[in-house]
């Protein structure tokens, strides 16, 4: 089955991004495809390559980048939401790309299920 994922909150402040990540990993382990993760609202902050969490905590941004690298998951950051919050190419983490809201609608149409994670 093809999944689309939407993440609406930033890293650490809410568990949304963590749960979305665990869902993606489990879906891939089950043999499903995660076609795209779309980051909206404060979710765009998941794409900042400047985050440096404490050594004894998880690294939310790096986990997403690794998921993109290892499983070809398309990580898309909404450009309008990203501009409002200061996410641009210059601080974008590997594996993410900035694009329009159309990418969310497209995955909503093409995927079998769209699952939303937020506050």
């Amino acid at each position: 089955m093809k999944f689309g994922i939407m993440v609406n909150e930033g890293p650490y402040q809410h568990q949304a991004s963590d749960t979305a990540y665990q869902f993606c990993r489990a879906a891939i382990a089950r043999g499903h495809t995660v076609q795209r993760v779309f980051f909206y609202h404060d979710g765009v902050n998941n794409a900042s390559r400047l985050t440096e969490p404490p050594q004894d905590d998880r690294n939310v941004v790096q986990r997403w980048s690794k998921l993109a690298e290892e499983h070809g998951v398309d990580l898309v950051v909404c450009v309008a939401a990203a501009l409002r919050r200061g996410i641009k190419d210059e601080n974008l983490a590997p594996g993410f790309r900035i694009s329009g809201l159309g990418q969310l609608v497209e995955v909503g149409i093409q995927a079998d299920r769209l699952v939303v994670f937020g506050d």
Partner: protein
Amino acid sequence: MTTKKFMFVNRKAPYGTVYALESLEVVLITAAFDQDVSLVFMDDGVYQLKKGQQTKGIEHKNFSPTYRALEGYDIEKLYVDRESMTARSLTEDDLLVPVTVLSRDQLTSLFEEQDVVLSF
């Protein structure tokens, strides 16, 4: 292109958080993709449609006129939960746009026939 049924569930008041505003942006794009778009306003989301919003004092953009513009994008399925209106003492006269007021049973059926449900 495939046409799917997209439902946008608005449950939050405007201005206190950004969700109402950014939800509208998704709604407009979804309509531009020629999808079957429904909007549901329930819980505090019904306040998004309240007439008379004046945002100068809080220096926010007043985005409530956008609801009036939805018709121009062929977005005409606006549903409001009756019980949410009652708990807030709102009537259809208080709202910026014509809506269809639904009971909880009617809303349940509406939810079940959707392909994609996005909550903001």
